[in-house]
């Protein structure tokens, strides 16, 4: 026992030796912008310190709350859809598709939306939903389903659904891939045992597969929520935030404050508020649903 201890402490020292420079550098690179943003948020255009005035303006701006509402609505639409659809597909393929060739083909099909640049996705979406030359209306009218052009991008509800549909199209395959891979690791014996016992697919899912998939669900949830807070490209091209400000989500709103209004102080204050809020919410969530158990 005693002979073992110096060796372990040497290993621990080695760990810190390797870890700290890398971690420290990254930490600095991540923190400097935050500090710069804080500094910018308390200075006026001419360089004088103005205290919390920018924060008051940022938080008092009703457009901020419109943006938050829009972002929340967007998240409420896309997150459940992506998770449920992805799960449904994963379960279906896992249970019914046996041939490796078919599975490989599905894999390739599923990664396609991940590799298309968001700008191109936005443009294709525009080609589908736009008034006048949008191909969706053309198809619907030629099938006789509707006789008048539907304003997919012009009505507030439809516009939100349109931009949400693009997100769902892009990210459901990702959820599918992750969950499908997860299902592969479920041990066959447990499944077979359950089937012998006469369990139907729902019970089988609830008691066996769900257990294995739970950590993945959490991870997916975290990554998708983070992405929804950052989503920008395809909405910018599809609606530009319109009609009015219906689809002006948080990052579009911040973009507008920064690059259209050039209100650097308010933009910086907004950035600081967003960063702090996210950190707080994040720590609360991870405390309640820890991803990494000790």
């Amino acid at each position, binding site marked *: 026992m005693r002979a073992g201890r110096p060796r372990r402490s040497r*290993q*621990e020292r080695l760990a*810190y030796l*390797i*870890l700290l420079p890398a971690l420290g550098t*990254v930490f600095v690179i991540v923190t*400097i*912008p935050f500090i*710069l*943003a804080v500094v*910018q948020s308390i200075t006026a255009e001419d360089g004088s310190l103005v205290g919390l005035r920018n924060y008051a303006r940022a938080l008092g701006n009703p457009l901020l709350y419109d943006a938050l509402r829009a972002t929340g609505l967007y998240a409420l639409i896309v997150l459940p859809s992506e998770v449920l*659809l992805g799960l449904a597909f994963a379960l*279906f393929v896992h249970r019914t598709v046996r041939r490796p060739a078919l599975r*490989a083909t599905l894999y*390739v*099909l599923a*990664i*396609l939306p*991940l*590799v*298309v*640049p*968001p*700008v*191109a*996705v936005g*443009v*294709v*979406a525009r*080609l*589908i939903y736009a008034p006048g030359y949008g191909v969706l209306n*053309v198809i619907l009218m030629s099938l006789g389903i509707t006789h008048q052009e539907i304003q997919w991008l012009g009505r507030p509800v439809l516009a939100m659904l349109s931009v949400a549909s693009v997100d769902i*199209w892009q990210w459901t395959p990702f959820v599918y891939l*992750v969950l499908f*891979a*997860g299902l592969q*690791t479920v*041990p066959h014996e447990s499944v077979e045992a359950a089937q012998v016992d006469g369990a139907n697919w729902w019970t089988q899912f609830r008691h066996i597969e769900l257990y*294995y998939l739970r*950590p*993945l669900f959490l*991870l997916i949830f975290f*990554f998708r929520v*983070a992405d929804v807070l*950052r989503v*920008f*490209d395809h909405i910018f091209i599809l609606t530009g935030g319109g009609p009015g400000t219906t689809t002006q989500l*948080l990052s579009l709103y*911040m*973009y507008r404050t*920064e690059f259209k209004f050039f209100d*650097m102080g308010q933009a910086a204050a*907004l*950035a600081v508020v967003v*960063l702090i809020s*996210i*950190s707080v919410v*994040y720590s609360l969530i991870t405390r309640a649903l820890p991803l*990494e158990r*000790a």
Partner: protein
Amino acid sequence: MRRNGLIYASRVAAIALGMAVVGVLYAFPLYWLVATSLKSKAELYASTISLVPRHPTLQPYVSVLIDRGFWVLLKNSVLVCASTVVVTLAVGLLITYPITRLPVPVGLRVGVLNWALSLRFLPPIAVVIPYFAIVRTLQIYDQPIALIAIYSLFNLPFAIWMLKGFLAEIPMEIEEVALVDGANRWTAFVRVLFPLAAPGLLAAGIIVFTFAWSEFLFALILTATPNAQTFPVGVQGLVTQFEIIWNEMAAAGVIAMLVPLLLMVIGRRYMVAGLTFGVIREK
């Protein structure tokens, strides 16, 4: 028995039909992207939209790559993304190896992992201006190195979590055996651990490459000329004020798709393993 089988079969058929419909909906945008990229300018201005290109042509591709000189941007993208993979994996290993293979306090391990995940929540738009200021101060504006640094930073969370999964799965005994045999840590790492972790590294590398490939905001702000501009910047540039050049835009989109697609297809064996982030352990 037979009736059960019939109900079961019809249910599967119904689900399959539903899946087929969804499949068509899913594949259509991709088809439309490719179809638009093969149309000529005149066809875009026709009074009626054709579902299949009437006179398919590869002219948009030629125009994008050669006339507009986007192949330079493509080259930049490859350079930046490949370098990002190297840097991200290296830094990721530096952070992940100690906390998975060496005895560190559990609190530190959990803390580092959680902190890494929280980085993903950073909205780029919130930090783009401070980074612009930093890049200018360091005099690396319009240089690929600026993008490599930023992309590595934003992809680190993903890489850390994937690497953690792979490294944690490899039994400690393997390294211990090498150490007992007289090798030092470094040799043990290179000779024993690395080959075993290679699939994970490959998977992580491919995913990092893909995410870095499509990045647009920083590429726009931190570059000024084709010296460092990447492909997505060029693609966005086809959305002009008075004319969106649909066919060339679609062609650029298809080109942009092909590189990461190729990588993902080649590395598919490792991808499946990589996508579970090693969170699920083989029991």
